[in-house]
């Protein structure tokens, strides 16, 4: 059935965009939680744990995201662990995000001068107090720019899950193109939607890089 590109096509793409946003949000939340845990353990954990996390980070960063997605979807189902596309996509993207955010945040924590830890020590703070009131608020301020910047990467990278048949924005574009044979209109619209999501994030990211005194109010 051939139909022409019209408003209902745009609606179809916008509908699929909800899945892109949902997958991005799941990835960011899961990857963010594990990323924070990994960053803290990489800085404060025992040596073997640090090495394990460093190894994980290297491995994931050196693997194409698409391969991670294929492993989670095809590879694991071959082992009898079948995940529906959304779950397989969320798992693989979260693993990918954990590696990157963990590494970004580790760098932010390590960039806080040793003297700040020492000053907190001298004021008799416990480790959780040092992190909560002294180190993490400063690391957070440094991390905002790169973190929001990486969110842009997440949104765009959800497009690789089109290849395991998850109907997010890119996959919806492919399907629509098959129906309309108007690739230029279809994929320009897809690109415009991605831009609409990502540009505000990039803009915020740039703004945050220059900000001062962003701390945890208490």
């Amino acid at each position, binding site marked *: 059935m051939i139909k022409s590109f019209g408003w209902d096509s745009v609606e179809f793409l916008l509908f699929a965009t909800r899945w892109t946003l949902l997958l991005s949000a799941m990835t960011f939340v899961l990857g963010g939680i594990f990323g924070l845990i990994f960053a803290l353990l990489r800085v404060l954990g025992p040596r073997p744990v640090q090495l394990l996390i460093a190894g994980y980070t290297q491995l994931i960063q050196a693997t194409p995201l698409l391969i991670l997605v294929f492993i989670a979807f095809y590879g694991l189902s071959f082992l009898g662990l079948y995940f529906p596309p959304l779950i397989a996509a969320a798992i693989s993207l979260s693993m990918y995000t954990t590696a990157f955010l963990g590494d970004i945040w580790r760098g932010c924590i390590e960039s806080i001068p040793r003297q*700040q830890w020492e000053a907190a020590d*001298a*004021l008799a703070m416990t480790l959780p107090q040092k992190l909560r*009131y002294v180190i993490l608020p400063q690391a957070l301020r440094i991390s905002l720019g790169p973190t929001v910047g990486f969110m842009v990467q997440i949104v765009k990278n959800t497009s690789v899950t089109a290849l395991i048949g998850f109907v997010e924005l890119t996959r919806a574009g492919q399907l629509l193109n098959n129906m309309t044979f108007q690739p230029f209109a279809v994929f320009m619209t897809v690109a415009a939607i991605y831009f609409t999501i990502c540009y505000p994030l990039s803009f915020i990211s740039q703004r945050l890089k220059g900000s001062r*005194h962003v*701390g945890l109010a208490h």
Partner: protein
Amino acid sequence: MSALRISNIQKFFGPVQVLNDVSLDVEPSEVVAVIGRSGSGKSTMLRCINGLERIQKGSIEVAGHTITPSSGDLRALRKDVGIVFQSYNLFPHLTVEENIMLAPVVVKRMRREEAREIAADVLGRVGLSEKKDAYADELSGGQQQRVAIARSLAMRPKVMLFDEVTSALDPELTGEVLKTMEELAKAGMTMILVTHEMGFARQVANRTVFMHHGRIWEQGPSAEMFTAPKTPELRNFIASSLK
């Protein structure tokens, strides 16, 4: 009873011995200046007193707490022993007032209003009441250091340690910090200060300790130490630091 008693402590950094059988007694309200060349172990000794550096032998009794080579948690001690660093180390994401209130509120579980009153009091003592809402990067080095002193005072320490607190300051800013310390000394605070300010040591410290090669080489009332040094090492040190 001494406010501080260091007994035969030893400290190594790897194979290098930085403190060799150091012992020192400090009376309550006494002000002791520690002088010596870089690498003589004076800062390390100071940092051992509140456990920022571990000792490998001996013991330290300070403000009713005891540090041994096997001491674990030193937080109780650190509530009673304040330290001020060469590089101020204010928390840059907090205002001056928040810097001062933080430890009383989170460590001592003090009510915020009470902590705020203490902050106002200690800021008054260092003469910076009007800067309570400023951030560290809006202050001069001398002002930052005075805030760091106030932050430490807010914990109501029994002993205060000062680690070369004027060394990072421009000469014209050292005066205000030294004046703050002098007032603390007059108010009866027990103070141990590692310093390069010979004039200050001489005027304010009751006693001066000269460290050399990880040992206490010579000590005595400040006036005598500077006018009549007994060892050739101290004589040389005083001569070279007066240049």
